[in-house]
């Protein structure tokens, strides 16, 4: 593991390549914000965001081939297929379940009893401020949910399978037990979908920042970017095989939340995973929280029922 921005390798190549991988992330963020800020109302809809998101992911998959961060993280056919399986689960089972038992239900109920004029004060703020507040509130909730997953065993059981990945690629964010994906998606951010433009602007921060958490691209962004936003460097430390290092960088978008609570570690790691890099199958990922939970409960009861040994 490497600690400190000054110790990380730089992008190698000609001036165009170096400039491209230095400024790609900030330029894309500004471009996406400008798009959602000025897009006609007919375009500012969820389907546009989904199409943009898929197109952007395909482009980023290409970048992984052009300038990989580590050769050992190179995407293989099997990894790609497995990642897409989890993405598919997210778009089908998890989405369907969320619409019936997730935050969508609560938010929908609140919204149906909602008087628009009561939120007029929020809408009088500049759009970018609205978007920042929505994004910050969502990420703040996600920070504590994620930190809770690393500090409370029942939640950790749902999150642990995600930490068995041994490399970062663009779709690796979807890899994990569906319960975890459901829990991590909970948040108050969805409440603001009645403000389509601010909501989509907030979503574009996710698309232009948190999407890079799991990516195998050697970027070399300016230090102000790494000070404010979460990056693949931060997230590789979070996924490292080093236990202490993995208890850091919990936010998804705004790394300054980690800085506020003293959990930010600036650096990068190549050797990722758990148990020295053991791979976890899809089958084990699906049953891990239940079987491990059951084992833990059994062990606890067995310890309680052990006969007391008299002191000699």
């Amino acid at each position, binding site marked *: 593991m490497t600690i400190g921005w000054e110790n990380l390798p730089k992008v190698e190549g000609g001036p165009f390549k170096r400039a491209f991988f230095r400024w790609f992330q900030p330029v894309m963020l500004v471009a996406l914000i400008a798009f959602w800020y000025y897009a006609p109302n007919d375009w500012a809809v969820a389907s546009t965001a989904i199409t943009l998101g898929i197109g952007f992911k395909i482009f980023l998959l290409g970048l992984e081939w052009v300038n990989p961060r580590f050769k050992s993280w190179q995407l*293989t056919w099997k990894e790609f297929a497995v990642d897409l399986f989890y993405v598919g689960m997210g778009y*089908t089972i998890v989405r369907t379940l969320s619409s019936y038992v997730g935050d969508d239900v609560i938010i929908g109920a609140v919204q149906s009893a909602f008087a628009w004029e009561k939120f007029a004060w929020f809408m009088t703020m500049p759009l970018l401020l609205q978007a920042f507040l929505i994004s910050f509130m969502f990420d703040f909730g996600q920070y504590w949910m994620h930190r809770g997953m690393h500090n409370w065993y029942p939640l950790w059981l749902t999150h642990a399978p995600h930490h068995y990945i*041994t490399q970062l690629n663009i779709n690796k964010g979807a890899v994990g037990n569906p319960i975890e994906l459901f829990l991590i998606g909970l948040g108050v951010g969805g409440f603001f979908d009645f*403000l389509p433009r601010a909501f989509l602007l907030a979503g574009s921060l996710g698309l232009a920042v948190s999407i890079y958490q799991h990516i195998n691209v050697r970027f070399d962004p300016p230090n102000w970017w790494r000070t404010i936003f979460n990056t693949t460097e931060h997230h590789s430390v979070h996924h490292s095989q080093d236990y202490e290092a993995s208890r850091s960088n919990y936010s998804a978008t705004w790394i300054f939340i980690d800085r506020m609570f003293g959990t930010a570690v600036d650096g990068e790691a190549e*050797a990722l995973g758990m148990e020295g*890099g053991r791979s976890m199958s*899809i089958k084990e990922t699906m049953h891990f929280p239940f079987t491990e939970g059951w084992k833990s409960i059994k062990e606890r009861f067995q310890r309680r029922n052990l006969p007391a040994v008299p002191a000699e």
Partner: protein
Amino acid sequence: MNTRFFDWIWHVRDSIDLPAGQSHDEAMARLEPLFHERGTTYERFGNSLSFGKKGQPAQDKMSVYDRGELLVETHAGGSRLRYHLVSRAFLYCFLAPLLFLALAQVNNAISHYERAKAEAAGETETDKDKDEAIELPQSSIDKFLGAPTPEIPGEDKDEDKQIGPSPTPAYVFAGIFVVLFIAGRILEPYLVKRLFRRRLFGLDEDATPASATPTAA
């Protein structure tokens, strides 16, 4: 029943001519390091080698295969490496479209149920007139910068609005996995043949096991 008619889905069988004069011992010695990976066990008996993999990491160049046998056969015309590899990943990828088609049908069933429920309750009638009458506020900064005037989300605009979960993503993923299976079933056997050939002919520059020696920690 001859399973070879359909087991090609997850079984790979092929062969490579060894370089002239290469003994089976030398051939196996060149191939053996490929099995010094984490999660891989193997046994070598003279001119044959069998292996199994469990929890193989992504960095293993043969991670797509779970078990297999390699055999060097010697004929009058020279020697040949025959191999038979088995991949559960191919099988699961082949079956994945069926799973997603089934999920699409579940979503269709839920949608039909939701639509029937909505129609019975007379909920298809919308009260959008009420919402459209409201004028939403906009920051003077956004007005100055030329952002479009806000509108209440235009739900219920489509007469054929989706009620309940949409089956479309499941259909899309079923299609993706069909393409993925065809691509993988062609690509991975080609890659493993190239890997074996490079090892046998001494052309492989990177001969160290990828996952046995982490490069950073």
